[in-house]
């Protein structure tokens, strides 16, 4: 069959996007409400006591981090839980028996989750910049970075969705790794405000680079080189995407 069955690929992608859009109360609204609450609490209530960080009002400074937090959580959760449910309820078999390659199937799952991450992150960033009248440094760079990070964490979600034997295992990474790393990744502060040793530790946090990169794209300011951040985002995407496609192809935990 010379036909690569792109219809099959787009059907899986459409199914993935259709699933989270039909569940928008669980998949889109919560992160927007959370970001709004953070902006209100930290930005207005507490932020009024902080004058500026690197010359930007605190509210402006935390916006890119909140957007990136939504990107990471949503991209990961979508693919991890969707794949896990399909595996547990066995309707993943519908895709495994279809003439769709492992690369196509995993790519469709990843892009589906990445779309959710992108929508969430973009809405928060664009609404925030509009509401607070922020002149975006580079909208193209910001949205590109959101897209790349969405793909990276959606791929990581695929790996953990494949690996998980129960729903706790799907969420354990979010609770114990992603959320803490995002919080200490400079969402609410500049690492320049930290003691030297802690600052050094932050450099080992990959999520710090994502936040730093988006802050550069949005405000034009940065703690460390934006080029390094973009490189880190691309490297994380390449590695996680490669691993997830390989696992799908091997059929680890999804085939007999």
């Amino acid at each position, binding site marked *: 069959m010379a036909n*690569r*069955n792109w219809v099959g690929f787009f059907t899986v992608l459409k199914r993935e996007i*259709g699933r989270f859009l039909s569940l928008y109360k669980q998949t889109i609204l919560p992160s927007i409400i959370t970001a709004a609450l953070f902006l209100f609490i930290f930005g207005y209530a507490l932020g009024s006591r902080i004058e500026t960080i690197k010359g930007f009002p605190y509210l402006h400074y935390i916006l890119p981090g909140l957007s990136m937090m939504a990107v990471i959580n949503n991209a990961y959760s979508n693919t991890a839980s969707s794949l896990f449910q399909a595996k547990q309820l066995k309707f993943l078999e*519908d895709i495994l028996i279809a003439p769709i390659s492992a690369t196509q199937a995993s790519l469709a799952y990843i892009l589906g989750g990445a779309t959710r991450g992108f929508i969430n992150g973009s809405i928060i960033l664009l609404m925030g910049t509009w509401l607070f009248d922020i002149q975006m440094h580079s909208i193209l760079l910001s949205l590109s970075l959101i897209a790349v990070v969405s793909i990276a964490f959606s791929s990581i979600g695929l790996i953990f969705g494949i690996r998980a034997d129960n729903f706790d295992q799907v969420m354990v990474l979010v609770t114990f790794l992603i959320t803490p790393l995002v919080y200490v990744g400079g969402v609410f502060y500049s690492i320049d405000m930290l003691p030297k040793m802690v600052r050094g530790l932050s450099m080992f946090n990959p999520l710090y680079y994502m936040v730093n990169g988006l802050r550069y794209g949005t405000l034009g300011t940065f703690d460390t080189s934006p080029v390094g951040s973009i490189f880190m985002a691309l490297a994380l995407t390449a590695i996680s995407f490669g691993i997830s496609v390989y696992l799908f192809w091997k059929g680890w935990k999804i*085939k007999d």
Partner: protein
Amino acid sequence: MTDTNETPAIQIRGLKKWYGEFQALRGVDIRIEEGEFYGLLGPNGAGKSTTIHVLTGLANFSEGQVEVFGHNVVSDFRYTRSRIGLAAQEFNFDRFFTIERLLIFQGGYFGLPKQRATERAEELLKQFGLWEKRNQDSRKLSGGQKRRLQIAKALVHQPPVLILDEPTAGVDVELRHMLWDYLRELNDRGVTILLTTHYIEEAEQLCERVSVINRGEIIADGSPEELTDQMGGGCIELQLDEPIETLPETLNGFDASLEDNFIRIRVEQPNKAVQEVMNSLNDADLGVYEMRIRESSLEDVFVRLTGRTMAEEATDGQP
């Protein structure tokens, strides 16, 4: 390669599969001609599902050659998978969508453009009496409706080979007969069918050829008639006037079993053996209240080969 009459629909040679130390398939050979109605029987854990999973891409395998219409299921998976429809025993419906939508998606996975998939979904939902339920989620369907949906799902892309794993498990007699008629009709239209079943009547009624698989090996292969002639052996069942404690010595030459006042004797040709059995009981002074003769059946072949009855398998096999 093209789908010619000479090329079998399914050809499996020397198929081996290990799960760690455990060898699930020990060199399975199966050849199913195009248009054949073929049954795969065997105890639970014998390798039926693993074989089906290898054919459909749900399982990797360690050794052997597996082809569908002459195309390798690994190197040419797009070709082979597009020609197979699988109705798994366990219901596996995408519960985020209505049953019409999930059939349309299923068509899409197999490369049908949206309009064609929508038409096929409508045809199948009407054909299987599910059209009224099209906007419902699969969880709201009854067991019989789910079974019909499971088969409809396998047929969306009109595959020339249909694989059914226990297609009538848990359905009532009326639906079972309706499904049999439908499967016969599909087979008459040229669809090659491979089914696994625990219902002996199903295999006898539908299959032109059956194989018995046990411990990962095919141990018998032929038409139901051939197998029963070669290996079946019938049975004489006797209900005695009075219960007895042990079998009389006069029946020592027979393969007989006793339960209260009920004796079951397995024989090659029941009608020829009746007189001899009656004489033996007379010699032992035992009166017979009722006698039944059961001709050889596929059930006997199964019991003889695997040491288990199909009914035991059906009970054990419930998910």
